[in-house]
């Protein structure tokens, strides 16, 4: 099971007004666990007051850079990103899980491939890791990056991309699209939409030669780009997507509320929410699981192994008290947040409210 390891902050570089790049170093003993593949991300945890927050940020160094760096852009109201941008200093330690994620294609030094990347804002972080690695490890491959930002000064890694263009002459092209800042060429100004993408394929990018495309940005933009790529004959299996790991609202981490823990009866009033619909039933406290009771009440509750191993039946207890017989799949923090494996879960209190939708 995943576990957290402290990483030492060895450098803090301000990348733009609201983005920092942190260089992190694991203990020598953990170095192997933190070896990464281009395009992967790290999940961090930190206590903010009484609340533990977990956030994932993409690694922005290349596999051969010899260091582990993540780029963190401050989001309005984001506790973790604000902390990383304003308070983290060299010598601090941050808890992180080993690298995860599958936003990459296998590297083959003998191959000569044509790659295309689309990044918006901080969506550049995994893409620049991929670019650096491909340029270093596939000497005959080329990469074209279409990179959307609001304006010039908000572009992350602008200088680093220029340097890469100079080091790997002729193998990296970067097309900057700026939303609210005019450029010499109209095509490069404004929002990326279907029309602009058509024009890019007409004038700048040969769709037929593209072997693989990487897209990282907000959802709607990724759909627009993917639809356009398909229109230009690029197949689904050639397109790799990565949502900003942190673009989705973080889960509130609150312990299960035990408003009613009185244990008096031999039966329990259970209320289960699934796909937005809530059903209530009474079950005996006879050692049967809440999952079995829900299924017996004709609910299509998710489950697979029924042995506390696979985590398919994960649900959250919103009220009441339950006991889990076996748990091989949930981490401590999930349990603290009220998550249970419903196949292993028997009611203790006389009322239990449980949801599969949270």
């Amino acid at each position, binding site marked *: *099971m995943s576990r957290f390891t402290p990483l030492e902050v060895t450098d803090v570089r301000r990348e733009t007004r609201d983005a920092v790049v942190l260089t992190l170093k694991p203990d020598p003993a953990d170095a192997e666990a933190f070896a990464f593949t281009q395009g992967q*991300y790290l*999940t961090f945890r930190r206590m903010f007051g009484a609340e533990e927050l977990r956030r*994932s940020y993409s690694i922005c160094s290349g596999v051969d850079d010899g260091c582990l760096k993540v780029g963190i*852009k401050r*989001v309005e109201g984001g506790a973790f990103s604000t902390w990383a941008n304003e308070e983290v200093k060299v010598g601090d330690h941050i808890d992180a899980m080993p690298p*995860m*994620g*599958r*936003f990459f294609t296998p590297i083959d030094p003998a191959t000569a491939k044509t790659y295309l990347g689309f990044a*918006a*804002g*901080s969506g550049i972080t995994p893409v620049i890791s991929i670019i650096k690695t491909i340029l270093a490890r596939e000497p005959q491959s080329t990469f074209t990056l279409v990179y*959307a*930002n*609001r304006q010039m000064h908000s572009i992350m890694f602008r200088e680093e991309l220029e340097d890469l263009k100079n080091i790997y002459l002729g193998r990296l092209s970067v097309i900057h699209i700026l*939303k609210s800042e005019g450029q010499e060429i109209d095509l490069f100004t404004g*929002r990326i939409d279907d029309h602009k993408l058509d024009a890019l394929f007409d004038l700048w990018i040969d769709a037929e030669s593209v072997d693989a495309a990487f897209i990282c*940005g*907000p*959802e*709607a*933009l*990724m*759909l627009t780009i*993917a*639809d356009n790529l398909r229109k230009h004959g690029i197949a*689904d*299996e050639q*397109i*790799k*997507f*990565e*949502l*900003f*790991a942190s*673009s*989705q609202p973080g889960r509130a981490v609150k312990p299960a509320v035990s408003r009613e823990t009185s244990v008096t009866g031999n039966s329990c009033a259970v209320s289960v929410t699934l*796909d937005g619909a809530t059903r209530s039933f009474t079950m005996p406290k006879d050692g049967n699981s809440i999952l079995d009771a829900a299924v017996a009440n004709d609910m*299509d509750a*998710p*489950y*697979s*192994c*029924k*042995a506390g*191993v*696979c*985590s*398919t*039946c*994960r649900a959250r207890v919103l009220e009441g008290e339950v006991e889990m017989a076996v748990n*091989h*799949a*949930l*981490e401590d923090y*999930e349990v603290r947040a009220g998550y249970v494996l419903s196949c292993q879960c028997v009611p203790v209190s006389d009322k239990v409210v449980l949801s*599969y*939708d*949270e």
Partner: protein
Amino acid sequence: MMNDADTMSIEDYLAGGGKLSSPDNVPPRYRAELLRLMSSFVDSELAGSAGFADAINWAPGISQRIAASRIVLEKAASAEKVLDLMEDFGTDKALYNRAHDWATRQPRDAKVDPRRQGGDMRLSVFHAPLISWTDACVMNLLMGLATGIQLRELAQVSYIPLADVIRDIIPVEARHKELGRVGLVEICATEEGRSEAAASVDYWFPRVADSFGAVGSGRFERLARMGLRHRSNKDQLEEWTQAAQAQLAALKIR
């Protein structure tokens, strides 16, 4: 960020054909359905592998023995590839293999409800036992054709890591089907062999057909909105029926 005008719910993103690549981004219901799909695949492969182990010793010759061993090996390997993806969601891979007895089968004449039976998520067809080399070859051909269709569906799934793994598995499973077909060509060279094969076909045909699930299942709509399903059970069943009948006709079994 450019989130202001571009903000979109993950449900709308998926309904619009969006793809996901990281366990951290998947909503709870999506996670549950995805894990259910993956464990059904893993359990079917493990049960398929375990059930085929007997066929190694039924093999009439050394090349068939090697072919059967390969099927047992490669189906377990395919299961592991998907189990590795489940591990990203918290599944305890080491314990998973021990959660069920993958070799267990129901009696040959048992009526197995196509809905899941007991603890594991294998397709119902993998609850039926193989009884001979001919039987194993028939099952392999018919189920191999079905698996090809079912995996092409799964290869379009909106969780990219799974789609990628399934694309790697498709040619492996196609080879298993082909080993069954080649075995049957040899068996059907004699009248006696062909009549034994025909009896096995009568047994397996309806059971493999059941593996496509209920026609008109309400779950399809829900999974389709998440990009987890694309073609209806009915369409896939029709495609399989035609393909299977063509193969059996070529072998002069039906």
